[in-house]
């Protein structure tokens, strides 16, 4: 034994049970690796919730944990969208919060008290481990080679396209939704292969969980019917398909309708119609199948044509009538923008203003998927080679997913699983081909070739080509080592991307000092903490909607608008207040009971994500509602430039946003030397004046500036003259006025 350990090891891997054990260990290691690679942000910064939406999810989770499920279900949130409030319990996908709430309570029941924040922070990495396992299972359904499954699990675990939405702290719906997506697909394939109601029901169950978790469930709702439709068109209708699909659709739709936010959408909106249509179509096919077995084929032919024509006509007529009558809602704007990337820019600025709704740039594919992107077509091609029902699924998914990933950046996420599966099939096929130590003997292959040649004479030319084997060890090792290098590079790339691009909490900014050490810029939390400690608990904060969730989560203060952009008019109102002059915006702020206004200003630090850079979106959104009062053109100079320096237009200089951004900024610099480092321009010597509000707080690096809205003047003056009086300027004598004397009427 000691004499030949290598052989012993080799023989150890041969037994079926040993292999099973190895597979489990490898899978566990992969899951561990996928969790570990997502912890950069926790190690670099701290255990903190990232970005914007996660802050809302975190807040909702805390509410759920504190108030119980029923209160959460009926939650009316009076601390957002002031003064409209938000029926939060009925307008969110509760899956994520319920999941972490369940984990929290389970851990407590096991007497492991873990802070709910830590559960929320680490939920995404934990679920990414499960996603890796789900990818393994899905791939195993495609190919008998178990190495493909393990490779798929590995790819899934570390592909940046998925990591981008699932690093520790990125507590968003996608964190659990991708696992559910892959697992639902696995169950669907399983149900389809076996024609099993049990698997179909399980598929429906996980579909229901998916619906409860993410708006992207529509992807499944469209993909499964599409797959079924393609199978039917290929003449592969079978009772297996019938059982799997009808079970999934009936139970899954019922499950999805239990979510208040979804409600009756599955029977009302166009996005859900394909699933319903295929459901009906399958019933017809099953009926026809039965009729065919019951009547002679000649009569059946006529029956079929009449029946098919009639059904199609009635169905189409019904759809048209229902749509025009408004029973079925027309396609939503977000859906149109999936087909026409220019649609949103013209019609719905609020959708276009979100960066993740932009079309994907080509380099992003390589950045997020690296070598998988060129292995992906190979895998799809290999699927064509076999083309069983499940391979059709991969092909359909690949087409569907690639299109949508090209349209919207965020849909890269739904493409990643199929890329991982297809690439894993490709790599494992390559490895299986080149790693087999046994070389075929030339005469053997000749014999095989001969037999094949005879058989396939009538076939296509390409299939009759002589079969070629790999004979040389040298060639094999070259190929295998090249592939190994690629795989290693892939790991390097993934780690690099994760560490550099996707692990910033964006709440805390990091910069490098000249000596290479890390410098943390913590203005956001400084400002939110200031709000929390220095303002009344019900002080209303107005800011652009990007910061709504963060203010709600970190400062715990009511906001006017937030990242749940359900009310475009309310957002436009804030946009109007920001882009109008003080005289116009003050009544708006009074009406909405605004106490403080928060703006983000990057001029001192050169921080690009500030409000002046987003300002045009505010103007556009406000212009969409009040085209007579707000005009985007007025913010551009004669020559069509967007400027903030002395050349800026009067509208720009008088706008509240400009004034709040640059108020008192001059005092930081020697006279006339004020410079905006973000936009790289010199500012006018005299800064703007504010009379309806006063500066309340400015953070260390001037990123966040908070202003307090003044009350109405006690003596009934307008704010301009009150401010002038406070500065010591004398009022002009009213008696010098020309024209008829103004008489007082009581």
């Amino acid at each position, binding site marked *: 034994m000691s004499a030949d350990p290598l052989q012993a090891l080799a023989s150890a891997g041969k037994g079926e049970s040993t292999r099973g054990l190895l597979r489990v260990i490898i899978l566990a290691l992969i899951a561990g690796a996928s969790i570990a690679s997502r912890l950069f942000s926790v190690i670099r910064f701290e255990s903190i919730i990232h970005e914007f939406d996660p802050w809302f999810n975190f807040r909702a989770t805390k509410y759920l944990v504190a108030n119980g499920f029923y209160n959460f*279900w*009926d939650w*009316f949130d*009076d601390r957002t969208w*002031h*003064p*409209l*409030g938000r*029926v939060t319990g*009925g307008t969110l996908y509760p899956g994520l919060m319920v999941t972490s709430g369940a984990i929290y309570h389970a851990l407590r029941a096991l007497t492991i008290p873990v802070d709910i924040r830590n559960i929320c922070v680490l939920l995404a990495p934990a679920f990414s481990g499960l996603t890796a396992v789900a990818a393994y299972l899905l791939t195993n359904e495609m190919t008998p080679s178990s190495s493909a499954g393990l490779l798929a699990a590995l790819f899934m675990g570390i592909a940046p396209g998925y990591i981008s939405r699932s690093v520790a702290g990125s507590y968003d719906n996608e964190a659990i939704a991708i696992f559910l997506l892959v697992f639902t697909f696995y169950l669907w394939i399983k149900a389809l292969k076996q024609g099993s109601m049990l698997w179909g029901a399980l598929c429906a169950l996980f579909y229901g969980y998916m619906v409860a978790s993410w708006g992207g469930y529509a992807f499944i709702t469209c993909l499964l019917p599409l797959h079924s439709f393609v199978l039917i068109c290929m003449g592969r209708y079978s009772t297996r398909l019938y059982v799997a699909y009808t079970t999934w659709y009936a139970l899954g739709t019922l499950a999805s309708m239990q979510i*208040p936010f979804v409600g009756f959408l599955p029977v009302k909106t166009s996005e859900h119609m394909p699933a319903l249509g295929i459901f009906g179509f399958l019933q017809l096919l099953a009926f026809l199948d039965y009729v065919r*077995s019951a009547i002679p084929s000649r009569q059946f032919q006529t029956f079929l044509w009449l029946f098919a024509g009639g059904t199609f006509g009635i169905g189409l007529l019904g759809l048209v009538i229902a749509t025009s009558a408004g029973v079925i809602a027309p396609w939503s704007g977000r859906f149109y923008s999936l087909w026409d990337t220019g649609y949103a820019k013209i019609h719905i600025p609020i959708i276009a203003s979100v960066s993740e709704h932009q079309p994907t740039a080509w380099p992003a594919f390589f950045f997020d998927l690296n070598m998988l992107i060129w292995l992906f077509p190979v895998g799809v091609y290999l699927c064509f080679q076999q083309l069983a029902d499940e391979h059709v699924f991969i092909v359909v998914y690949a087409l569907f997913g690639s299109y949508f990933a090209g349209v919207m950046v965020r849909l890269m996420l739904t493409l990643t699983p199929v890329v991982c599966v297809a690439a894993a099939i490709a790599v494992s096929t390559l490895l299986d081909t080149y790693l087999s130590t046994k070389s075929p003997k030339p005469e053997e292959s000749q014999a095989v070739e001969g037999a094949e040649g005879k058989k396939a004479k009538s076939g296509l030319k390409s299939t009759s080509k002589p079969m070629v084997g790999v004979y040389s060890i040298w060639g094999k090792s070259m190929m295998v080592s090249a592939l190994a290098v690629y795989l290693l590079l892939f790991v390097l790339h993934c780690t690099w991307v994760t560490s550099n691009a996707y692990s910033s909490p964006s709440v805390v900014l990091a910069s490098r000092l000249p000596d290479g050490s890390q410098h943390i810029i913590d203005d956001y939390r400084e400002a939110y903490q200031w709000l929390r400690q220095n303002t009344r608990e*019900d002080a209303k904060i107005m800011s652009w909607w990007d910061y709504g969730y963060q203010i709600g989560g970190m400062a715990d203060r009511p906001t006017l608008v937030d990242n749940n952009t359900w009310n475009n008019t309310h957002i436009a109102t804030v946009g109007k207040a920001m882009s109008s002059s003080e005289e116009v915006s003050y009544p708006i702020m009074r*009406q*909405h009971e605004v106490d403080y206004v928060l703006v983000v200003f990057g001029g001192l630090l050169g921080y690009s994500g500030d409000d002046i850079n987003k300002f045009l979106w505010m103007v556009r959104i406000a212009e969409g509602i009040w085209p007579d009062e707000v005009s985007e053109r007025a913010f551009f100079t004669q020559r069509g430039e967007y400027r903030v320096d002395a050349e800026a237009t009067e509208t720009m200089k008088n706008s509240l946003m400009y004034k709040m951004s640059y108020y008192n900024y001059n005092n930081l610099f020697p006279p006339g030397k004020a410079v905006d480092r973000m936009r790289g321009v010199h500012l006018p010597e005299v800064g703007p004046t504010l009379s309806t509000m006063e500066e309340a707080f400015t953070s260390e690096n001037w990123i966040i500036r908070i202003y307090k809205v003044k009350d*109405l*003047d*006690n*003596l*009934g*003056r307008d704010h301009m*003259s009150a401010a002038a*009086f*406070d500065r*010591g300027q*004398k*009022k002009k*004598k*009213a*008696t010098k006025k020309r024209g008829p004397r*103004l*008489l*007082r009427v*009581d």
Partner: protein
Amino acid sequence: MRSFLSLFVFLFAAAVSAISTSGNRLLVILDDVADKENYSQFLGDLESRGFQISFENPKSESLALFHLGERSYDHVILFPTRSKGLGPNLTPNILVDFMNADGNVLVTLSSGVSAPSSLVSLLSELDIQLPTDRTGLVVDHFNYDTTSAADKHDVLVLPRPSPIRPDVKDYFGEGIGKDAVLAFPRGVGAALGASELLTPIIRAPRTAYSYNPKEQTEVVDDLFAAGEQLSLVSAFQARNSARFTLVGSAEMLQDKWFDAEVSQADGKKATKTFNREFAKRVSGWTFNEIGVVRVNWIEHHLDEAGATNESNPGIYRIKNDVKYTISLSEYSWTTWTPFTVPTDDALQLEFSMLSPFHRLALQADAAHGSDSAAAYSATFKLPDQHGIFNFKINHKRPLLSNVEEKNTVSVRHMAHDEWPRSFVITGAWPWIAGVGVTVAGWVGFCALWMYSAPVDGKGGVKKTQ
């Protein structure tokens, strides 16, 4: 608001001798302290009403309205001063700050003395205009005192003041004889702007006008104001209910006019003036002794059968029935009395989110009233709109302190288990029946299917082929 109120009550309890609702520290600013002899009756009346009077010269170093950011006095009377300005301790900004800090100011003018420039700029902030060159004289060739101003016609004899609007309480003319007259000797008239915080207490008669006795001796070419546009005594009440009164003639507060007899041109017999009573009322109004409304408490609760009796809940549901009650008192010289709304006025409640969804006149609620307070209430159904609403009372009337109350409540949507059950809704019965039929049919079909096993194996096989 509540803390403000309790502070109010506390102050009231602490200074028992104080008669005003907002403290009794009164500062009188005079050029020469000896001048106070002229006003001995007026000041004596104030003292007898419980005010502690301090006298200061405007130029005095020790004069300070604020000490460590707190008001040193509750009220200020400014008598005419000969200096051009009021000195560094009485700049208009300080006076504005004093009013912003709830201090009350009574300013008197005299035509013989031109008003200090800082006073003029303060007045212009309040939207009150004085004649050019800061001086003027109001004369009336029809309503003058024939005994004292037979030639100059500058001692006006005015009838009893009447309220400017029918829905405003008559604080200054109430209970005074119909024929009683008021002497207004050598006063300055002011022109009031359109500000809604201003109220003229006494307007000049239609035949009166203002001129500059120094420059316009021969002919009045540039008329400042005439008739009712000329306000002789004006009241200003800031948004925080701080009061400011401008009395055009300081002389009318002097002892010699308090019980003087005046006679009018139409030959009627000489009548006694009621200047003393008027001075009491003007100073009483300015120093918060009359016309002060206090909100004692506000209560709102669910008004539904079987609902909990919780007071002032933070959240309601849409379409709840709600009762709102507010208790108000009005101060009248020495006691709090129930606040009554004039017959052609109404106390209104708004239930609003961005704009009012309800605007209701509150009805007197005798059950919650008392000797010193009146309760008003309204019962209504909340709108079918969820959101953050305010119960808003915004009762602002001339001469009455402002009542501006806002109680915020959330109105939530129907919870998932608050809807009527399906079997209660008659329209749902066909569907419920449909569910029942389907279930029964399926069970029946299963039973039939399992019961009717194929009799002959061969026949079955043939049929499926």
